[in-house]
């Protein structure tokens, strides 16, 4: 049961200091919760009870600072607040609020520290504590790393409880009733005589009072919303075309822009815009960093005009042909480029000495994020204020970067976060905002909407990393005995943080994420990360390092298990020491009826990966239909500690499987002449409906920590597919996209 102690007036509960156990010099200075941002901008009679709840006489607003890219973040955050606040979801307005340090992400740091999620030792927890303080210091209001639920789970319920108890105190003050006799329901305080006082009627009184911070969270058995099927707060809007996204935002006097910057991510030597300037509706042609923009009176005219500009691009900032990128990775498996070796159990070299070594090499290509809504931003620059309206996962970085560009202070930059039509990590980058700002600075006072064409969005995508792995292993007495995996990739974190001007010292955990921390007790077990040189710009793509490593790690394990002559499920169960992980394998075996005969020309493959602290086991069943593979069914068992909303959970996991399989089968970004060869969905397709298998999902709640599940279903999926194809055909597919090696129906 969580309690919060006395916190100074007007600095309400923000962080989760109670879960931070570490001590380090300089740490406590940042432990003070940041000020409540809502208090600086309140109208008369408006009460902001915590940074997450705002009430006035017209309504209740829940502030949901984690951005929504379709994962249901607004809904989940609202439900957590509403649970303790005693409001119904149809009584409230949900607003992402303005970026503020108070909304820093405490859960992100937990996975940034180099300890296995299964490691609860003192060193692990104290380091996580230090990282947490750093995160607070940086005020990183980031949506990513499947952290929304872990970050919000306690914090937002406490916020709801603080608000509720304060409203009860206000009701007691107003009516003279004893606070102990008051209850709350459906956005109102229930008085002893049965009368009610709506929260909105109490806002003015509550605004004059100290908040009641001494609250106790309710027992899970009493929950009304959390864990139950709910109607998502945005589902009607999204089913009637009335949900507004970033790209739909309009403001009076707004002009439309579209941009082209170097497809080689280098410089622009020059351009000729004579023809473009003559086109109908074109207002201006302006330069931006490494590119040029057309400003027009509607989106289509801006796109047509920018495409009519003849541009001379400089050379690529990285090797210009794909083969050179693979070569750079291949050359990285050496001691000088070793980045980490967090896993080194037993003695791999001794075990392999004299044994019949099994070796394999794996590859995973660059991939675009390609959310269906192309990136866009509206920016209005004046002498003393900038407004930005955009769908972003990093509003605080946006605020800082726009301030730098315009020379204004960050508190003069107002970032309005809008609903996103998908992201998958794409909107962890902010180039569209920077470019829109550059254009708007040249048209002071005029709001400028910059919309990328699909082609520009694809070419300029900071892709998923390419990665390569080499495995060596041996088996003994029908068991896996030695497992040695080296993984080479450029550092995603260095590339991504580099664009934000942030240093990234030390090893990059993402190079081995999804491999080094697997809860498998192989007697001789080593995972080594090699840092390839920086190549094309890369960024976080749904599940980041684990998106490639989950494939490498588990397919190689599968190869060894087959070499040992063991059953793929039985041997994984034997090797897995971590109880919640073990249970996911048990569950998926039962769900898929593992061990039964799948029928002629069919094969099943199992894979397991723990990523973001979430153990996930999956079985894929395929049919070999005259040499072409059809995916029939997928079963998923995932351990998340607590399922917040079963419907949203099921949908999200199914979608993640489609995401992972679609790209593994069909998609890659390749570089030729210094630029991405792909332009649109015709050459970067992902999965379409006709290929989608039936997907069966089970959420397990055996762990004691709530975890987010936006990503963990991704890493095992491609491995389970490869393993299933092997079971059905005897062909082992080690490189993605798989359709280069086998046909799919």
């Amino acid at each position, binding site marked *: 049961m969580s309690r919060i102690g006395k916190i100074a007036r007007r600095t309400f509960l923000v962080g989760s200091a109670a879960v931070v156990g570490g001590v380090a010099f300089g740490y406590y200075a940042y432990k003070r919760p940041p000020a409540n941002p809502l208090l600086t901008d309140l109208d008369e009679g408006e009460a902001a009870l915590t940074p997450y709840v705002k009430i006035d006489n017209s309504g209740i607003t829940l502030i949901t600072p984690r951005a929504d890219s379709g994962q249901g973040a607004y809904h989940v955050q609202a439900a957590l607040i509403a649970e303790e606040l005693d409001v119904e979801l149809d009584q409230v307005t949900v607003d992402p609020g303005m970026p503020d340090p108070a909304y820093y992400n405490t859960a992100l740091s937990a996975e940034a520290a180099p300890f296995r999620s299964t490691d609860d030792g003192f060193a692990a927890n104290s380091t996580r504590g230090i990282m947490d303080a750093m995160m607070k210091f940086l005020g990183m209001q980031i949506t990513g790393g499947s952290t929304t639920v872990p970050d919000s789970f306690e914090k937002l319920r406490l916020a709801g409880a603080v608000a509720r108890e304060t409203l009860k105190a206000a009701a007691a003050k107003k009516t003279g009733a004893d606070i102990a006799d008051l209850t709350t329901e459906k956005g109102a305080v229930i008085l002893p005589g049965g009368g009610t006082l709506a929260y909105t009627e109490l806002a003015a009184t509550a605004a004059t009072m100290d908040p009641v911070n001494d609250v106790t969270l309710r027992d899970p058995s009493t929950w009304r919303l959390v864990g139950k099927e709910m109607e998502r707060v945005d*589902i009607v809007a999204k089913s009637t075309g009335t949900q507004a996204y970033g*790209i739909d935002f309009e403001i009076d006097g707004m002009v439309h822009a579209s941009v082209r910057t170097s497809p080689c991510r280098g410089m622009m030597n020059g351009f000729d815009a004579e023809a473009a300037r003559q086109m109908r509706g074109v207002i201006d042609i302006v330069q931006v960093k490494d590119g040029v923009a057309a400003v027009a009176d509607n989106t289509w005219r801006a796109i047509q005009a920018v495409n009519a500009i003849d541009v001379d691009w400089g050379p690529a900032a990285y090797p210009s042909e794909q083969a050179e990128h693979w070569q750079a990775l291949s050359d990285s498996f050496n001691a000088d480029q070793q980045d980490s070796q967090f896993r080194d159990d037993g003695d791999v070299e001794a075990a392999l000495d004299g044994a019949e070594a099994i070796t394999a090499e794996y590859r995973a290509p660059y991939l675009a994020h390609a959310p269906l809504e192309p990136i866009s931003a509206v920016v209005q620059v004046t002498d003393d204020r900038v407004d930005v309206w955009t769908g972003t996962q990093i509003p605080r970085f946006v605020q800082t970067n726009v301030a730098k560009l315009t020379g204004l202070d960050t508190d003069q930059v107002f970032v309005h976060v809008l609903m996103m*039509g998908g992201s998958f990590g794409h909107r962890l980058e902010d180039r569209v905002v920077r470019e829109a700002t550059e254009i708007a600075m040249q048209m002071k006072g005029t709001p400028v909407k910059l919309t990328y*064409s699909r082609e520009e969005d694809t070419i300029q995508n900071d892709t998923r990393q390419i990665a390569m792995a080499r495995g060596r292993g041996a088996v003994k007495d029908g068991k896996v005995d030695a497992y040695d995996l080296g993984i080479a990739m450029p550092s995603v974190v260095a590339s991504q943080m580099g664009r934000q001007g942030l240093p990234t010292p030390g090893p990059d955990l993402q190079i081995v994420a999804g491999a080094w921390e697997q809860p498998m007790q192989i007697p001789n077990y080593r995972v080594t990360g090699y840092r390839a040189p920086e190549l094309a710009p890369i960024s976080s793509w749904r599940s980041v390092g684990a998106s490639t490593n989950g494939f490498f790690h588990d397919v190689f394990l599968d190869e060894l298990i087959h070499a040992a002559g063991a059953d793929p499920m039985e041997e994984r169960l034997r090797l897995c020491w971590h109880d919640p992980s073990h249970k996911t394998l048990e569950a998926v075996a039962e769900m898929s009826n593992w061990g039964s005969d799948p029928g002629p020309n069919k094969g099943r493959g199992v894979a397991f990966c723990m990523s973001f602290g979430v153990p996930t086991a999956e079985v894929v069943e395929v049919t070999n239909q005259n040499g072409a593979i059809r995916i029939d069914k997928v079963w998923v068992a995932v351990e998340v500690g607590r399922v917040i909303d079963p419907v949203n959970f099921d*949908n999200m996991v199914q979608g993640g499987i489609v995401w992972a399989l679609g790209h593994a089968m069909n998609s890659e970004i390749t570089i030729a002449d210094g630029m991405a060869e792909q332009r649109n969905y015709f050459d970067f397709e992902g999965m379409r*409906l006709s290929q989608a298998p039936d997907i069966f999902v089970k959420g397990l709640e055996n762990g004691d920590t709530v975890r987010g599940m936006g990503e963990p279903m991704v890493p095992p999926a491609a491995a389970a597919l490869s393993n299933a194809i092997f079971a059905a055909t005897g062909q082992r597919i080690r490189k993605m996209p798989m359709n280069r090696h086998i046909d799919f129906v």
Partner: protein
Amino acid sequence: MKLTVNGTAHEVDVEDDMPLLWVLRDELNIKGVKYGCGVAQCGACTVHIDGEAVRSCQTAAADVWGEVTTIEGLGTPDAMHAVQQAWVDHQVAQCGYCQSGQMMQAAALLAENPAPTDTDIDIAMNGNLCRCGTYNRIRAAVKTAATKLQEA
């Protein structure tokens, strides 16, 4: 030129080759129709012209041959079309960006084929991409809507 959208007649002054998508979005401020690819690869821009599902990004303004219906004309939050209601009941949407196009495609399918088989659904809906991967729910919602429409 003249356009009738969701029962309302409009006069617009645009190039003949401006895609209907952009006439709707930027000239008439009808935003339920979405831009995803611009080349008829994703289906997010799907609208009906005289009841037929078309990709508005590849339909030139001058070529519009009949009355245009967008998702806003199919039904409203207070009076949903059976397809929209099924989309709510199954909670299909994640990001939701493709779903206007999905529903327009589904509504056209059901108008023509009231009891589609799984294969019919796969074929009719295959041109509508969903990057969030809500396909299992889309299939189920189409079937629910079909049942509802047949009962009606």
